């Protein structure tokens, strides 16, 4: 990353023998990347990274002094022997064809995948408790994650952090496509940051603006990384990706500013941060003919991200002159010309349900390879709930209307009410083609109590995950250095000619045959009425005797009877 020497670079001491009370227990970096999209929308990605040289999992040594790293997460990591944790909450769906590839992808709803340490004996028990604890930390209903929607992928989701052993018995993956993301999830997420939402880039996170967008995703990624590859450190990355729509943000003018996007401007960098930068992607605007960016900055940076070399204007918030006279930094981006067509992303996937009626259906997954001449393999992972009973013998994979046999298939059938279906396939995609994977299913009848309070909404099926090594146009850098910006250093790169990308498809919404929930009440009423009227009348006829009861005679008759009794004459009736 070519960049004039960074200011204020704090180096962390490598952990050597006999080190006492480390003077620099970690570092914190924050950055914001703004990428104008071709449709006039704007994509903003925040990344906050906290590095800490400590070992949560070391025997006999309990970590108790937390400075930059949040204590709630540190305790979770040590209690459940977690090696890697990735959790994301997303509202909306990422439109790859219009917006390109995101820096860090995420599926709609909530997604959680965790690698446990190999010393754990009961992975399922730890997983269950971990989901409950996380549901309390993030105010989300993650406690709905149980064995009926957890899968153990056999080849996807390899660890993104350090590690040699990849025994997939210690991996758990679950997704809740129905999960709603709102301010109550953002509030605890912001509280995990060292500066909170008081200083630095996090002051821009106002929920009224963030949720009034086409796409909003917040995530927490924890993994062990190596620092200059001599020592291990824990990395906590908090990312927030948001795409603002030009038309719903009002005013119609084709311009963007920090104030229009977030209703705030920046006044200072986080004092605890070792670097605080704002990057704006100007690759499509080399001469300034597409849009105009102000305030101008002499700092430029280049980075290879997602297989492409991009140029960025860099604003360093740790320098006082960035804020200017008014002590406030507001970026302004005004569109001048009309942008042409966007370069088509090389990998794209879609999914939909076909069929009619409430008994059977078909799931179609379509994967597009838009590279003109290179073929590359993709790993497709599908996790389907048990109530959609897949007929695996109807599974077909076709590319260019010819059968395409996957080189690896792993299928774990579902067990009713115990586990979902898991299907993983390694498919070689021919160049410039569309591959279609179809499988038929039948809908199951659920028990009365298993329906949600609003069953006519439908039931969700989580997104499929397509993991691929896409050939890159530009050579990727294989060694991680500290100088790389955060958005280009998330996924470890092993070879220069390709980059790893993960694409999520749409979640599906299927209707299950829904019973009429008022029927038990109707049946009880009808049966009781019939029994009461039929048997009751019969019982009365059999067991009761009838007597004629005379009403009491009027006063005149009673007097007359009294006189007759005295006379001894028969009484009146």
């Amino acid at each position, binding site marked *: 990353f070519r960049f004039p020497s960074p200011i204020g670079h704090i180096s962390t001491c490598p*952990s050597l*023998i*006999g*080190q*006492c*009370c480390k003077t620099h227990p970690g570092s914190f970096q924050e950055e914001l990347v703004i990428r104008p999209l071709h449709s006039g929308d704007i994509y903003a990605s925040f990344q906050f990274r906290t590095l800490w040289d400590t070992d949560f999992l070391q025997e006999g040594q309990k970590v108790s002094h937390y400075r930059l790293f949040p204590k709630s997460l540190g305790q979770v990591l040590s209690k459940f022997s977690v090696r890697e944790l990735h959790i994301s909450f997303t*509202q909306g769906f990422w439109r790859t064809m219009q917006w390109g590839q995101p820096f860090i992808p995420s599926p709609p709803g909530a997604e959680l995948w965790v690698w446990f340490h190999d010393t754990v004996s009961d992975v399922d028990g730890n997983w*269950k*408790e971990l989901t*409950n*604890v996380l*549901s*309390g*930390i993030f*105010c989300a*209903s993650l*406690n*709905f994650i149980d064995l009926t929607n957890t899968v153990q992928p*056999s*080849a996807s989701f*390899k*660890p*993104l*952090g*350090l*590690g*040699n052993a*990849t025994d997939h018995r210690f991996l758990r993956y679950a997704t809740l496509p*129905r999960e*709603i993301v*709102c*301010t*109550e999830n953002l*509030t605890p997420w912001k509280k995990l940051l060292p500066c909170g939402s008081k200083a630095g880039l996090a002051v821009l996170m*106002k*929920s*009224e603006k*963030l*949720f*009034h967008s086409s796409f909003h995703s917040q995530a927490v990624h924890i993994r062990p990384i*190596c620092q200059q*590859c*001599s020592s291990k450190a824990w990395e906590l990355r908090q990312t927030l990706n948001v795409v603002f729509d030009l038309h719903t943000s009002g005013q119609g003018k084709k311009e963007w500013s920090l104030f229009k996007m977030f209703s705030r401007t920046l006044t200072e960098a986080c004092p605890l941060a070792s670097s605080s930068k704002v990057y704006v992607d100007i690759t499509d605007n080399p001469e300034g003919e597409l849009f105009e960016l102000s305030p101008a900055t002499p700092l430029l940076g280049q980075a290879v991200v997602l297989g492409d070399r991009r140029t960025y204007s860099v604003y360093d918030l740790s320098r006082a002159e960035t804020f200017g006279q008014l002590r406030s930094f507001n970026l302004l981006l005004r569109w001048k010309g009309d942008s042409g067509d966007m370069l088509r992303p090389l990998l794209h996937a879609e999914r939909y349900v076909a069929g009619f009626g409430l008994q059977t259906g078909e799931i179609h997954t379509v994967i597009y390879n838009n590279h003109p001449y290179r073929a590359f*393999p993709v*790993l497709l992972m599908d996790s389907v709930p048990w109530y959609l009973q897949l007929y695996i013998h109807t599974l077909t994979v076709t590319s260019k209307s010819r059968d395409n046999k996957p*080189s*690896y298939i*792993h299928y774990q059938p579902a067990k009713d009410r115990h586990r979902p279906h898991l299907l993983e396939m*390694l498919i070689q995609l021919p160049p410039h083609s569309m591959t279609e994977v179809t499988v038929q299913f039948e809908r199951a009848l659920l028990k009365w109590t298993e329906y*949600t*309070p*609003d069953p006519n909404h439908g039931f969700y099926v989580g997104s499929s995950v397509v*993991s*691929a*090594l896409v050939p890159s146009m530009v050579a990727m850098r294989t060694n991680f250095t500290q100088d790389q910006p955060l958005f280009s250093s998330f*996924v*470890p790169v*092993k070879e220069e000619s390709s980059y*790893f990308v993960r694409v999520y498809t749409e979640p599906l919404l299927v209707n299950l045959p829904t019973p009429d*929930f008022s029927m038990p009440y109707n049946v009880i009423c009808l049966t009781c009425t019939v029994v009461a009227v039929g048997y009751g009348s019969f019982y009365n006829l059999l067991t009761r005797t009838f007597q004629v009861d005379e009403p009491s005679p009027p006063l005149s008759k009673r007097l007359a009877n009294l006189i007759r009794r005295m006379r001894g004459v028969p009484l009146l009736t």
Partner: protein
Amino acid sequence: MRIFTFCTIETGQFFSSGHTNNWAVLVCTSRFWFNYRHVANTLSVYRSVKRLGIPDSHIVLMLADDMACNYRNPKPATVFSHKNMELNVYGDDVEVDYRGYEVTVENFLRVLTGRLPPSTPRSKRLLSDDRSNILIYLTGHGGNGFLKFQDSEEISNMELADAFEQMWQKRRYNELLFIIDTCQGASMYERFYSPNLMALASSQVGEDSLSHQPDLAIGVHLMDKYTFYLLEFLEEVHPASQANMNDLFKVCPQSQCVSTPGHRTDLFQRNPGSVLITDFFGSVRKVEITKDTINLTSSLKPLIQSGDMQIESLTYVDQLPVAEIIHQKPKQKDWHPPDGFILGLWTLILLVFFQTYGIKHLKHIF
């Protein structure tokens, strides 16, 4: 928060209530967009309670549906209580403990009685003790003797009364204020029989509680009348306020509310006129001021690493190792013979045996 002064009247009042901490359980039981007002009701009480000092860790907030980020909401991440969008009761700092499908009768009763599974996080528990004053607020659709949860189940007044009795027996509260804003709300507190309970309802048996005003931009009714006037009353209350329960009983008379609010104080030991609003809606923080110096001893010991730290070869894993995946062997699971195979096998053996040696051997078996 009350500041500890040396004035005797303040001191006397400070210790007269007998509670040391405050909790609040605020429940909205309705789902669907047209029940926006119930969520707004609950959030306005949440807002008042937070403003008067009860922290998030002592509030259990249960919202059965999400209105703020609902796709029908023209202003996402907001829930308004007044028309023309004057007051956003959702705010920027809100923590919902039970949301969506988690708001069920079972979870509500478990929160009250404390019988939760061991892995439940702290924020979802009501960790009250015998010196806690608890405020319980329920809103939703109800009828004579029941309250509807999410259009699929209901809680009866007898269950609620029994839950409070369980709480009393386990000494989970010092005093409890129960407020309910539903149709025929007074029927819900008719069956209470535990001591130290005070109850308020928005309408009597046979009356309906009405909603207040719609907002034409949002398209639904924003609040219920009783809670609207309750919010207006609570906005005037500040943490040092001396307003008492008799003022609360006067909130929303029939001229404003159309329904007749009711209250029940026969189970409460203190006189309602001496009970402050902040006893339930605010939070007690006792501060002890000391002038002595306290020495903090350093407990940090130097980290002695045991011998050489084994630095294993630190490498990253290949994200998509194609060759490795193709040659992956499937996991060996224990092989069991198919169902019925053993039974069939034994039947076959017996049949062959008796075929060859004749039927007369059968009598040795049966």
